[in-house]
């Protein structure tokens, strides 16, 4: 029986990449009983994996199946039918007719892309100052960012609403975006990334007469592309998935983002589960595609965010 292979989670996205096999196969064959036990162990492992698979992905599949079932077909689960008999895309069109799903999706996209850009830009600027510059008040600035991490957004949402109203930004997408424009987590991730860069290169640049801005823009920022990707993706997903704050700040249904809009669709307009299911699929499929394409940045972000955040 081989010992469990522990592989660092450096790149979990590429399981098919050749894994370093440490030792050549042992010369003496293992006893038959041991080999059988190992095979049995692997079988049990796959069985358990399948159980978890059904639990995690089953709800998505059931929703997908519901969204594709024909109008004459029972969507109720008795007896459960996973594969639609008369598959149709009608309900997607119907969801788009009932509420402006596409315009909600566009609103979400604007907010999410906006947040990704501002978090990368402002987060890296602040992170660079904290990591590489010496100045009076640095500890205070750092303390302010840490303090905002301790304050749960939910505990200041009433005052946040009042603040937005006094700024005249209630019921606007800018109002949705601003509190998420640069999170302390983004700043900390950039700060840690910059601290991990060798100082020598930048010191050489100082001798060449490069100012702070040039060192940041020409040397430091291009060296932390991985962190930039992580911050961009997490800011994007966080903004896309956010529900409570857009629910509070947006009042005109024409301005809704997708999460608020989908809830609105299900609560107000329709009792047809097929249409609601189609709406949820529209909201979640783009994100699932994003995730399956860029998995390794997601996993890396969880590691860095949880450990250092």
């Amino acid at each position, binding site marked *: 029986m081989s010992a*469990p292979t522990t592989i*660092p*989670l450096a790149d*979990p996205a*590429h*399981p098919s990449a050749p894994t370093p096999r440490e030792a050549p196969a042992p010369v003496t064959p293992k006893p038959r009983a041991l080999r059988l036990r190992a095979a049995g162990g692997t079988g049990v*492992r*796959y069985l358990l994996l399948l159980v*978890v698979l059904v*639990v*995690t*992905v089953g*709800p*998505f599949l*059931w929703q997908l199946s*519901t969204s594709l079932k024909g109008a004459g077909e029972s969507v*109720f*689960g008795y*007896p459960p039918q996973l594969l639609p008999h008369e598959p149709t895309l009608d309900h997607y069109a119907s969801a788009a007719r009932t509420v402006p799903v596409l315009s909600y999706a566009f609103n979400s996209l604007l907010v999410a892309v906006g947040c990704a850009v501002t978090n990368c830009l*402002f987060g890296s600027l*602040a992170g660079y100052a904290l990591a590489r*510059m*010496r*100045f009076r008040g640095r500890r205070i*600035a750092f303390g302010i960012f840490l*303090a905002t991490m301790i*304050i*749960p957004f*939910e*505990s200041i*949402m*009433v*005052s*946040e609403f009042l*603040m937005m109203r006094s700024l005249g930004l209630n019921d606007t997408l800018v109002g949705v975006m*601003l509190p998420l424009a*640069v999170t302390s987590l983004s700043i900390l991730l950039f700060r840690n990334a910059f601290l991990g860069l060798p100082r020598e290169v*930048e010191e050489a640049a100082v001798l060449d007469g490069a*100012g*702070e801005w040039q060192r*940041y823009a020409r040397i430091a920022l291009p060296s932390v592309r991985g962190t930039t990707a992580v911050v961009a993706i997490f800011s994007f997903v966080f903004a896309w998935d956010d*529900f*409570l704050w857009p629910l509070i700040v947006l009042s005109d249904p024409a301005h809704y983002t997708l*999460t*608020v809009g*989908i*809830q609105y669709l299900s*609560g107000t307009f329709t009792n047809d589960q097929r249409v609601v*299911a189609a*709406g*949820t699929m529209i*909201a*979640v499929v783009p994100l699932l595609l994003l*995730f*399956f394409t860029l*998995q390794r940045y997601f*996993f890396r972000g*969880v*590691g860095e965010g*949880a450990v250092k955040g």
Partner: protein
Amino acid sequence: MTGRRWYAPWLFLAPALAVAVTFFLIPFSNTVVLSFTDASTLGGGHFTGLDNYRRLLSDDAFWLSLRNTALYVVVVVPLMVVLPLLVAVLVQRRIAGIGFFRAVFYSPVVASMVVAGLIWSWLLSSDGLVNSLLRALHLVAEPLPFLTDSRLLLFSAMAMTVWKGLGYYMVVYLAALANIPRSLLEAAEVDGAGPVRRFTSVTVPLLRPTMVLVATLSAIASAKVFAEVYTLSDGSAGPGGEARTLVYTIREAGLGLGGEAGYASAMSLALFLGTLGLSVFVTRLNSQERQA
């Protein structure tokens, strides 16, 4: 590396500081101030001392929310500490197709809570899949009121929280598992320890800091629970709002027409102190057990 111009660092920090101060520090200070007034969301308000806090003590809706939220923390945190760890151990070994399993297990994390809520409310409705399966297996005669009984609604929301958080904490644990020196596990194997024994005697003690981290993160997240309960109940928090959580009640009291901003702010501070207390409590609990 000294800057040539003293203000250069502040230019770098300016946008981030502006956001942190305008959208976190000022609203937080305002929350503290408002909690001592009778302000409404329309403005105005007079200093009323500790009236809001006195009112909290005798407000049934507040205590109900607090009890529900506490129950949420107590049930969800142990599940979040244990289940993702077991799944992480399950996907740790690089067997064929493991990358696929890891990715799929993570996928609920990516979905928004609203999407999750709508999917689950369909699954758990009286004629939904879960009730049909239970009836088909003759486990229940009548459909279980997962969404219309407030206690069951709360537990349904907890199940959804765990479903959605499982993949996230799995990845956190995977990173920690990768740091356990293989030699230790091999030494235990040589000493005759089976897989279970190796897990309890080597892996778990070494993962302790990560478990504390997961407990803290999931405790704070559970204390702030809102979207799960809101979406599963179409915004009603169950019949009579009986499944209300703290954030649900804060939103109901402090926002919307005629919202009592002052009173809701007092509740908000209770939430803030609660989350602060939870993280201190978990850390303390850990250090005490260590000494013992």
